[in-house]
């Protein structure tokens, strides 16, 4: 039995428990699903089907990563428990893509992609989800009933499936409007179409515009994709620069705080990654844009955010080693992966130790003080609006043009001075400047023309990847040396392990040399004449230009 796509919602259905009634709810007590059945009964024989596949009670848990990777890819993953067993079901637009039975699954517990049992669902989502964990996003308890639609011979030619669900999340439960679907019986497609047409004509019944999952989330007051690691601050070109900067910084603070719980629960390594990115962006914003904030505010917090960044570094460095461990082991030629096991064990031990320090820091009064006071100060700036101490405060657009242009010129100059003989530090410094430019572009993204923005960021990203590969390889080599020393000191380093670590260091040196070779090409593409023209186009766009009256575009 294949579930037909022709899903319908009854807008006279259920209502939120303790909330507002579902849109268009009717006052009459008659079950609207019964009204739909009455209409079908005029053209078909009807018979209740007991024990049909998919009928009865079922518990569903929808799963996604914290940053909604499945949702963004148009996928819905659910864990379903019925009287017949438990399974994971992956779908797109309500059409099943893959399913696999699972046992012993605890849907409320986050589960890393790599811990999923082998099967077709895992195969389809592993790369997309990794290294994130799957988290329960919402729950639904459903009662599904099936009615057979019969022809004159009493033969089942289609089925009406009625799904009555109550969705819940964070202790809030909402009864969803009943959902109807016509299931086609093989060889009788015309009858299913006919039944669907009849349903569509019933008053109060409308084709379902979204999946049950989307309906459930909306009813619960959530939106799929309500978290993103991007900046996405709501700023406009003519906004006072101080208000725009405060808005961007508040958005960064939101992201930072949203990730704290995931870091403390150690759900997956991306929580710490996103938290660190927020801290780095904040530090760059303070450095590059802090001048438009009230006197002393930026300076006071620069040191605090440096402390926060430093607090997170050791754990993240160890995460990076562990995340890349499989790939490192795969590239070994002389040594075997097994030789590296003591190294992995040591990394895990060190990570556990560093994580305790990190967690203590994030639970400390200092951390709470930083975030609380920073938010309060930023809200004051944002809400102060237009009144300006200075005669004429720049607009967000003017600030974007001046700071972005300056950051770009700095890169052109510094990068242009790099030769084959330049020390690694010159590339490290350029990487920092490139990061600052990238952040500026992201902060002011809403003010830029999307096409021009995409071109500039695309080239910049390639340059950053090259510089990142160069520096990360060098840093990792240094770290592996230090870790080897520490393992030796603690008698945790068998000779085979040290030799294997040596091979990794050698491979990193090769990667670094390749990145160094690649640099000239990447830099020329980004900062050469064509790249400079692209940047000019970006900053000259009317959207960001300032009109002669100074009101902004």
């Amino acid at each position, binding site marked *: *039995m294949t579930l037909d796509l022709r899903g319908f919602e009854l807008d006279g259905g259920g209502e939120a428990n303790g909330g507002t009634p579902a849109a268009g709810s009717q006052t009459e007590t008659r079950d609207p699903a019964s009204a739909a059945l009455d209409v079908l009964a005029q053209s078909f024989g009807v018979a209740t089907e007991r024990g049909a596949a998919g009928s009865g009670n079922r518990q569903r848990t929808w799963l996604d990563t914290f940053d909604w990777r499945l949702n963004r890819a148009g996928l819905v993953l659910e864990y379903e428990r019925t009287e017949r067993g438990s399974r994971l079901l992956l779908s797109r637009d309500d059409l099943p893509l893959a399913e696999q039975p699972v046992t012993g699954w605890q849907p409320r517990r986050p589960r890393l992609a790599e811990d999923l049992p082998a099967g077709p669902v895992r195969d389809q989502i592993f790369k997309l989800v990794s290294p994130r964990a799957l988290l329960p996003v919402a729950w639904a308890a459903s009662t599904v009933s099936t009615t*057979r639609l019969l022809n004159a*011979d009493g*033969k089942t030619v289609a089925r009406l499936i009625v799904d009555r669900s109550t969705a819940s999340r964070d202790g809030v439960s909402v009864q969803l409007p009943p959902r109807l679907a016509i299931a086609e*019986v*093989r*060889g*009788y497609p015309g009858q299913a179409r006919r039944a669907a047409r009849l349903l569509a004509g019933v008053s109060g019944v409308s084709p379902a515009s979204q999946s049950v999952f989307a309906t459930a989330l909306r009813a619960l007051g959530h939106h799929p994709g309500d978290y993103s690691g991007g900046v996405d601050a709501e700023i406009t070109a003519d906004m006072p620069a101080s208000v725009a900067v405060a808005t961007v910084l508040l958005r960064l603070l939101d992201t930072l705080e949203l990730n704290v719980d995931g870091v403390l629960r150690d759900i997956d390594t991306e929580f710490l990654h996103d938290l660190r990115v927020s801290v780095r962006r904040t530090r760059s914003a303070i450095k590059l844009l802090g001048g438009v904030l009230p006197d002393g505010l930026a300076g006071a917090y620069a040191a605090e955010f440096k402390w926060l960044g430093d607090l997170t570094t050791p754990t993240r460095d160890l995460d990076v080693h562990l995340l890349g461990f499989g790939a490192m082991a795969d590239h070994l030629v002389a040594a075997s992966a097994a030789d590296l096991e003591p190294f992995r064990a040591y990394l895990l031990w060190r990570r556990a130790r560093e994580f305790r320090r990190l967690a203590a820091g994030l639970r400390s009064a200092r951390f709470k003080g930083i975030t609380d006071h920073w938010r309060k100060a930023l809200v004051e700036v944002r809400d102060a609006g237009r009144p300006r101490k200075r005669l004429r405060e720049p607009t967000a657009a003017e600030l974007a043009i001046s700071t972005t242009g300056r950051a770009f010129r700095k890169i052109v100059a510094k990068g242009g001075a790099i030769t084959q003989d330049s020390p690694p530090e010159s590339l490290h410094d350029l990487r920092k400047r490139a990061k600052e430019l990238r952040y500026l572009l992201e902060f002011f993204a809403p003010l830029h023309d999307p096409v021009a923005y995409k071109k500039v960021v695309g080239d910049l990203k390639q340059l950053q990847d090259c510089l990142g590969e160069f520096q990360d390889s060098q840093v990792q080599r240094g770290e592996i040396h230090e870790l080897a020393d520490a393992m030796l000191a603690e008698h945790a380093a068998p000779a085979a392990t040290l030799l294997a670590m040596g091979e990794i260091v050698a491979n990193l040196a090769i990667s670094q040399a390749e990145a160094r070779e690649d640099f000239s090409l990447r830099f020329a593409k980004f900062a050469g004449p064509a790249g400079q023209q692209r940047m000019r186009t970006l900053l000259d766009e009317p959207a960001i230009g300032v009109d002669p009256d100074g009101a902004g575009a």
Partner: protein
Amino acid sequence: MTTYATYNIKGGVGKTTAAVNLAHLSAADGYRTLLWDLDPQGAASFLFRVKPRVKGGGKALIRGTKALDDAIKGTDFENLDLLPADFTYRNMDLILGGHDKKPTRKIAQLLRPLAAEYDNVFLDCPPSISLVSENVMHAADVLLVPLIPTTLSVRTLDQLTEFVAGFNGRQPEVRAFFSMVDRRKRLHQDITEELLAERSGVAATPIPALSLIERMSVERAPVTVFAPRSQAARAFRELWAELNADDEKPADEPA
């Protein structure tokens, strides 16, 4: 995919009731099951309330102008599909004969693409010895032969076994089972006991002659559906368990 064919040269011996009930039990056990009603009388189609009609008729199916897949109908039961009968099947011998290359292997060839979709296929054959029945014997893994316990029936089984033994290459396993057994008749008892003692390949479970089985044509459903706790349903379940257990034996294990 395992293909079972209910076959007997005689009519009215319980081929269709066996095919319908066994196919339903197979589906209920979770096997994706197809029943092909090859009998132009369309009794199996009738019992599943499916119109005995195939667009383009038997000729289109056999000649491949209509894919078997497109003619299949879902029954009212999960995992169970039906390929309905068509009155043109009465000319099936002519149609098959017109197919010049290996006319006795055509049905086997048509079923091959369905292997990924179905675990078990049941062929309900018309009574006769013909090109159709020879096709069915080549397509089947298990030839299910309903036997009314009479001396003539036993003779027919012998002839059939001998005929199949003459096949070159792959031969179906011949599994007989007693059908329409009336325990009040001395002859039925004697023949049943004798044959079970003397012959291998005969199922131990007999299907009794019961009016409830005849009621299938009134209820238009397998007896295992409308009277699941009846003696008749129990007998079909036991017979299916025997057949299914045989089928699940490893290939190298002696039968």
